[in-house]
């Protein structure tokens, strides 16, 4: 990175300028730091040239190493939530926009984001099956139980009872939003998809520690 050309620097600065205007949670310097970080994550010039950005594997590494996520399925869903244009790569813009919610989102933004993550098939509802899928590893299996899935099924019913306000057996966005506003703990009802305060703090500290000189 040390031999980064003046040209590159200029481009980055302009990009930061534009993005910081579009994404409200970061100022220009912060945006620039994040872009540098984004660029630093490639190491492969070709990718940058083609303009694809981060692929699934690299992104998952970040989620795992930096934000301490472990659940494969959830990480996959987080990738999809970041990857707004569904091209299987996260571009600089998507990176900044995603991190804005991820790190500093308001409750509204986070609700939208979480719902997106949990709506596995993207049909606008979180169905019983989706919940089951997300919760299936959440209980310790008792070898003595006849039906090992019984607990999970019951948990799904409990979640539905708690959140399904219109009683249609699935969670619409409105259901989800109402429930979370009532009880903030339900924001990550079906699995941890946001970093905790400590990780955010550590990440920001690391990312913003040497702001680029102008």
């Amino acid at each position, binding site marked *: 990175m040390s031999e980064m050309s003046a040209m590159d620097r200029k481009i980055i600065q302009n990009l930061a300028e534009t993005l910081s205007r579009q994404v409200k949670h970061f100022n220009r310097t912060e945006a620039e730091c994040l872009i540098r970080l984004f660029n630093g994550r490639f190491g492969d010039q070709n990718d940058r040239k083609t303009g694809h950005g981060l692929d699934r594997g690299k992104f998952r590494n970040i989620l795992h190493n930096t934000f301490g996520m472990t659940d494969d399925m959830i990480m996959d869903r987080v990738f999809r939530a970041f990857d707004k244009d569904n091209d299987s790569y996260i571009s600089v813009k998507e990176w900044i926009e995603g991190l804005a919610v991820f790190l500093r989102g308001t409750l509204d933004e986070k609700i939208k984001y979480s719902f997106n993550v949990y709506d596995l098939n993207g049909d606008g509802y979180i169905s019983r099956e989706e919940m089951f899928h*997300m*919760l299936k*590893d*959440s*209980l*310790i299996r*008792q070898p003595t139980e006849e039906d090992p899935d019984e*607990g999970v099924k*019951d*948990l799904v019913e*409990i*979640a539905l*009872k*708690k959140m399904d306000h219109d009683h249609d057996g699935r969670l619409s966005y409105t259901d989800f939003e109402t429930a979370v506003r009532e*009880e903030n*703990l*339900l924001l*990550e*009802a*079906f*699995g*941890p998809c946001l970093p*905790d*305060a400590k990780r955010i703090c550590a990440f920001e500290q690391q990312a913003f520690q040497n702001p680029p000189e102008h």
Partner: protein
Amino acid sequence: MGIALTRAAQWTTASSGTGKLEITPLNESLLKEILDFVENFSSRHPQEANLEFKEPLKWKTTLDPCNFKMEYEVSGQTVRSVEASSDGQPLLHLSSSTICVLTFSQLTKIVRIANDKKLKELRTCLEENRDPVAKILGPSFATVEGEDTSVLRFLEKVNSNEDKEHDVRIKLLILLKQLDTQLLSSLLKQISQEIRLSPDTVKNDVTLLKSFCGNGEQRVLISVQYTSDYEYLNGCRTPPWRQVHGEICYLVIHTCDTDPLYVTCSTAGVFLNGEGDENAYERKSDIYKDLVTLLKHHSPHFAEHINKQPPSTQKIEHVEPVGAEEQGQTQRSYEHQEKNVHEKARQQPAQNKPGSKKKLEPSSKWKNLGLGSPYHKTPGGGPSSEDQSESSSEDEEDEEQPERRPESHADLPSEYWHIQKLVKYLKGGNQTATVIALCSMRDFNLAQETCQLAIRDVGGLEVLINLLDTEEIKCKIGSLKILKEISCNSQIRRAIADLQGLQTMVKILDSPDKELKCLAAETIGNVAKFRRARRTVRQHGGIKRLVELLDCVPDSATLTQEQEKDVEVARCGALALWSCSRSTWNKGAIRKAGGIPLLGRLLKSPHENMLIPVVGTLQECASEKTYRIAIQTEGMIEDLVKNLNSENRELQMHCASAIFKCAEDRKTRDLVRRYEGLRPLVALLQETENKQLLAAATGAIWKCSISMENVEKFQEYKALETLVALLTEQPEEVLVNVVGALGECAQNPPNRAVIRKCGGIQPLVNLLTGTNQPLLVNVTRAVGACAMEPENMAVIDRLDGVRLLWSLLKNPNPDVQASAAWAICPCIENAKDAGEMVRSFVGGLELIVHLLRSTSKDVLAGVCAAIAEIAKDEENLAVITDHGVVALLARLTDMDNLLRRYLAEAIAHCCAWGANRVSFGEAGAVAPLVRYLRSDNASVHRATAQALFQLSKDPDNCITMHENGVVKLLLGMMGSTDELLQEAAAGCVANIRRLALANEKARYG
């Protein structure tokens, strides 16, 4: 015989397993019947006797192998019968004291061999074979309750089989059934002769016994308590699964001379149970026919005293369980009676009115309350004494709450099972499952006791508290949200403390997450409602952390979101400190942690929900002097006064009680006036429905009225009229303060007339018959102040107030005695025919002279002052002289300053009779009196000079005085501007001089 054994026999444990057959008359006759049956079995039914049992009857025997003779092979410790069963087993086999028997004929033989031990053998046999029929005939004949079809089934089998052996077997069965019926009918005869207890008779007995409890010396018992407050519709207090055993209730009886007795009342009678042991229900004593008989056997003290109790009339009077207040009322009516039959009653020997001594004792509840800290729920009101470790009575209540016995599983509500399931998910789920389960648990009505206890009983508390130790903030928040709600229940509070929950919550206070801090602080606030919890919080550094939470900017106009959160954190911290501040140690800890200035800053907050815990904490802490000074110097009085004008009644109440406690100090009283706090206080007197508020407001008025400037303000606001109106129909917590305020106001002469004109004298005099000691202290003071005006005195006299004051000299509390004695002084001074009036109190003069033996200086000073007044009447002086007043007064002359003036006055007035002057001299009272002249108190000088003047009329006294250098001192006093002092000093010197002259004359002339 199966049914008779399982149902009728009295086993020590009703549960199955190896119980013991006790030695009761019932069991004994049952055993004898069975023994008879066995003994004659072989001869009567030889065929059946040889039928082999399906399973051998086995038991531990005490029989010695050498007792077995013919037909047996004995080798060492083993015995085998020669007879063997069809499959070769010996019919009797004994080895290492375990015996196995296979036929009735062998049983008959054993009974014969056992001889005098036969009853014991049979008992052990039955104890170890709870259902012998099943063993004899096979498990299909096990005794079952309800319809028994075994016989029918067996008949079918016999019919289809036509086996010879079955024929015999059925005969045996019929024989056994016959025995069963026979046993039952004979037992029934016995049982029906016994008295059966019913819930009603037990209840009556308990209420009767409760009336014998108390604190006095003559009490018979200390207390009788049910273990459960809940009474089922049938009158029983035991859980249903114990009711089937006929148990009606459990009692804890504290006697005067034994350990607490844990008693089970059952329909069969009452007996001691094994409370505290593993077998809590097990019988530990004989069965007695009722409670009184049991107590007579177990408590010699009870047996001795119960017979001294008066007959039924007294009992009926007290049958209802009386709470503290009711007791107060009965006492009052009793006092009324006493007033009317005063003389008569006094002459009656004490045992004619037993219990009177007990009744005059304050109920323990009042003792706990300390000096007027009113109400159980809110610790407000009076400044509690410094040495009391708790300024609130609330936790006492908390402390005593009985643990309820677990409910039976049969009638558990559905919530219980739901909660159990959720707790299972909490235990076995990851973070996500835990959060869902926690959220779902919050949907239950956690304010309901069933849910609270269900969470505890299924082990939920342990899990919730464990979650607090994890790293997951969401789980911690969810868990605390639940703990916060359920910790409103005192049993849960205890359980949380027992599970070390407080320690963890205190640690959480360090967390950077503000929501978490809030929840932890609020939960601590809920849990720390009892002493042990408060101590735990302090010992783990909780107070310091809680005080740190208070640090925020509460009053700036625009707050950022973060600042708002800080304010919320501070509010929760204040809530927790409020609970903690009920312990004296914690008050100190809050101060040391620098909490006072922070509280002072929060006091500027405009929000009521912040102000209530802050002022609550302050008023709680104001029982400490350091806090009172700090509240004054940190300028908090202004804010307290400001909040008196709040719309919120609770806030007003806490402000008023803070002022109540702080206004002991003169500067504070002045500040309250300067910030115009007196008017809102008077305005609060209109809140006659809200007794707590009224108590706090009247308390504040009382303390403020100690300053005369404030009294003038109160006059201006017409507070006196309102206060007089509050003298009736108010609880004692309010009355104490109202009367206190009137007493202070009446120190200002014009107010005395106002009180009379508003009709205040009568209710005040009526209150003299009360029993609440702080109230009596205030009432006597108020009556005394009123009596300073002759017109008032006329009213008091007409209402027989002086007699009532005089009877209060008998009150056990020295404060009451002293205050009554002081009140008597102006009465005697201003009453018409005071001398005659005093004489009419039979034994009154003796009583007051006797009080000179008191150890309390206040009492002595008051009594001396009263004696000075009494001695103005010559006849009365003669009487008190007869009672030895001179010696008693002389004995007191060595006492210190406080007393001197009044003692000197009393001596001066007592000199007027007979040879009293000489007696004082002989008793050595003169020399100490001379020393009084060296005191720097002018009023002491005057009284002493007057006393010396009286004493100097006796020549010997003059010599003593002269020897002690009185002349020089008196010469100085002759130059005083106080004419009375001047005159007395001059008179004394003149007497001394005259004696000297006469002496010279006799010698020389």
